[in-house]
């Protein structure tokens, strides 16, 4: 047994496992040190977890777009982060108009629904445009070509929106009914965080049952299994691919408004980091796998919000919160190295390299 293992291990594997083990030891050591210090009460941890859940469910919604496009086209839609940005940035102007006319305070629910719809419509429009102009002509091109196109499209969209709407931060108007907090025994939850979690969970449930239960959903799944066979079965492959972009765009647009509700500002560059994080989440859950993307998103959100304090504070690192992005990226690299199929992505692994 040991001999066989030794024969299969290359020197690089040894180095990799060594690095992995070192990181694991550091993480455990750091967590023990932080917990034994007792600097943070259970209230702190609860807050971290709720924040992480809220952030994670936003990641999960964005990650759905990545994972579905990857499922059907086997490409990373690098410009999906701009699909995410375009929605809330456009809907900002609707929100601002509602706010200044007082409609937002009088009819908060109606105006929130309209804001959601505008954002989702814009994101969907951008996603369809992207598919039609940039990706469709490149279906049969070598793999690097659509990826580079996606990177180009991403920057083009970012700076187009910057040109249209300006380069400053725009402060999203505050919705009064989402301010304040709810008390559960001795724990308190900020209202908007709870709303973000509930709304995202609802949306994910709807989208997931759409893909699992309806005929169109079935067709999408069959296209992602095998395009040629599905087209032989009478499925319009092009239309199904557009549908995946539409669903991804809708999820991203909704996620964008939730993001704006949570952080209260929009900016032309706001898509970049959440985009990469959501991609990480999709990889974490196993790319191409829809429940995996949701799980991965929530897991990543939790790690990011709890991780810096839990792992790093005990090691005596100053200002660990600055390193939260680094933790997410290290997690991404580790997953790509040790389990590229992700948590749930078993059945796709055999087909692609």
């Amino acid at each position, binding site marked *: 047994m040991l001999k066989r293992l030794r024969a299969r291990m290359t020197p690089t594997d040894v180095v990799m496992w060594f690095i992995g083990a070192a990181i694991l030891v550091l993480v455990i050591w750091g967590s023990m040190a932080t917990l034994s210090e007792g600097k943070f009460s259970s209230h702190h941890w609860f807050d971290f977890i709720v924040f992480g859940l809220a952030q994670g469910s936003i990641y999960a919604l964005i990650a759905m777009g990545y994972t579905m496009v990857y499922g059907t086209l086997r490409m990373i839609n690098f410009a999906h982060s701009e699909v995410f940005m375009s929605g809330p940035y456009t809907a900002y102007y609707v929100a601002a108009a509602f706010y200044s006319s007082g409609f937002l305070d009088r009819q908060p629910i109606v105006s929130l629904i309209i804001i959601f719809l505008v954002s989702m419509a814009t994101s969907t429009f951008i996603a369809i445009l992207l598919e039609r102009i940039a990706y469709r002509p490149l279906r049969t091109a070598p793999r690097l070509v659509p*990826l580079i196109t996606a990177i180009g499209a991403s*920057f083009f969209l970012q*700076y187009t929106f910057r040109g*249209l709407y300006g380069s400053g931060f725009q402060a999203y108007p505050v919705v009064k009914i989402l301010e304040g907090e709810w008390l559960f025994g001795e724990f308190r939850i900020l209202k908007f965080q709870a709303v973000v979690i509930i709304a995202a969970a609802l949306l994910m449930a709807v989208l997931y049952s759409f893909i699992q239960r309806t005929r169109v959903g079935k067709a999408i799944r069959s296209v992602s299994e095998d395009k040629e066979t599905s087209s032989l079965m009478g499925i319009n492959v092009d239309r199904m691919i557009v549908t995946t972009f539409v669903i991804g765009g809708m999820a991203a647009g909704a996620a964008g408004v939730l993001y704006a509700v949570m952080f209260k500002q929009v900016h032309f560059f706001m898509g970049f980091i959440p985009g990469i994080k959501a991609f990480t989440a999709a990889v974490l859950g196993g790319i191409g796998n829809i429940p995996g993307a949701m799980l991965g998103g929530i897991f990543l959100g939790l790690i990011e919000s709890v991780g810096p304090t839990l792992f790093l504070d005990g090691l005596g690192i100053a200002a660990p919160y600055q390193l939260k992005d680094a933790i997410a990226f290290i997690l991404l690299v580790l997953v790509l190295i040790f389990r590229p199929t992700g948590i749930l992505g078993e059945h796709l692994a055999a087909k692609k390299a």
Partner: protein
Amino acid sequence: MKQAIKIGLIGGVVEVLLSLIGMIEAFSQRDIISHIISMGHTLLLLVVLFMGYLAAKRTPGTKPLWGLIDSLISGLIVGGVLALLVFVGGMINLRKVFINASPLLYKLLTFDQGTTAGISLLLGGGALSGLLGGFISLAPSLLRRVLMVSLGSVAGAGVLQDLLRPTFALWGPLAVVNEWLFSSNGLTFHGAFGLFALITALSAFWAKKGDAIRSGVKRLPSARQRALKITSLLFLIMILLVLPQLLGLFLSEVLTIVGLYVLLGLGLNIVVGFAGLLDLGYVAFFAIGAYTTGVLTSPELGFFSLSFWGALPFAIFMGVLSGVLLGIPVLKMRGDYLAIATLGFGEIIRILVLSDFLRPWLGGAQGIGKIPKAHIGSMEFATPQQIYYLILAGCLLVGFISWRLRDSRLGRAWMAVREDEDVAQAMGINLSSTKLLAFATGAAFSALSGAIFASKLGSVYPHSFNVMISINILCLIIVGGMGSIPGVLVGAFALVGLPELLREFAEYRLLVYGAALVAMMLLRPEGLWPEALRRRELHEGESAEKESPVRP
């Protein structure tokens, strides 16, 4: 007809977008021909011309009249969509949402004639320009080529006036040309006309006699050909050596920036172009080179105070080391996963450098200052004109190494890995060492560039090393042609040099880069100056007789 309407609508949307993102307004600062046409209007005109050209080309059948009608219609529609923007903008204040929908924009779009006259001007002008585009498309190919070259060079001279004017001014006799050709903003009318006539004559001559001259050179005895080559090479080197003296301070500065990007591009060209490993975190090695130099030389931190030359080997060594260290984990990844993982690495490095945690060693957000300049004896490389030589030496060295590597055993192994990893491995190529060598070589070049960058600026900040730099470099090698060494030069001059010369352009740089990447991938995936092999690969399916002769 339907086609023409569609083309016209696309063109109109493009023009409205160009106006609303502020490009037209920004570009109108500069005149191409003084008081006659500005760069912004030229941009608008180009779109209409192109749409007219397309419409005429796409018209079915052979009757030229229908083509012209189609181009007229599409031009009219482009003008109409713009007129609609002016009309709507006059009714409601678009500026609340689109910050660039300023009164100045409407003034530019209506040619300062008021709304009604402006709209009719837009319609008429659009139709006429569309028609002109149709004429160009239907003209015989010789006339079309000559016309495009000469119109293009007039526009080019106008766009590059900041480059040409000071250069001519430095040369006594040419100052007269300067007077005649340029006014204070843009070409003079007679200058533009003269230039147009001259270029038309030259290009017509070349189109008639060019083939004869080329084959004449080919028929020369091989010794003479060799001598000709060596003379032109020597001439080129001479020019490179005296260039900063010819160009003055500002242009030398631009040249040094271009040079740094050439160094970076040559490095990434090995990783992406030769070995096919899409690395989006390439800026990390640039940062490592710069920071190693900074830490080792700056008296501010006070660990070491080596000279530039003392620190350079360490910087390159650190680059190679980090190239290998970051390369090992990603050895087994391919394509998209590799891209994302390297992007993650680049960000990790930047976040670490920026963090308070490493502040005592790397200076945190404040960076490292007081990095000394490089010396050779008493000669200091301080001004752009002096640093130019440092960078030139680096570029020549790195260019030579890449050129020799390309045809070496290792180079062929890289290309085999790029084409098909599994087959390459079956042919006995050691994938691990081949890929690691690619990462290490690329990182070494990048670290060299970083070291020069640190000494040029005298300080390093974490914000200089964001992901945009990686994207810029990727862009320039893709636009130039992946895997092609002259392509890196072309790409660097086009994507780094031009925006430095055009101040108005700076704001739209990344927008244009993005559009260029997409357009390049859709229309010409092999790049502007492709490697012969790659060009053949990407156009495999097309008929053999259509293939134009392979460029050098």
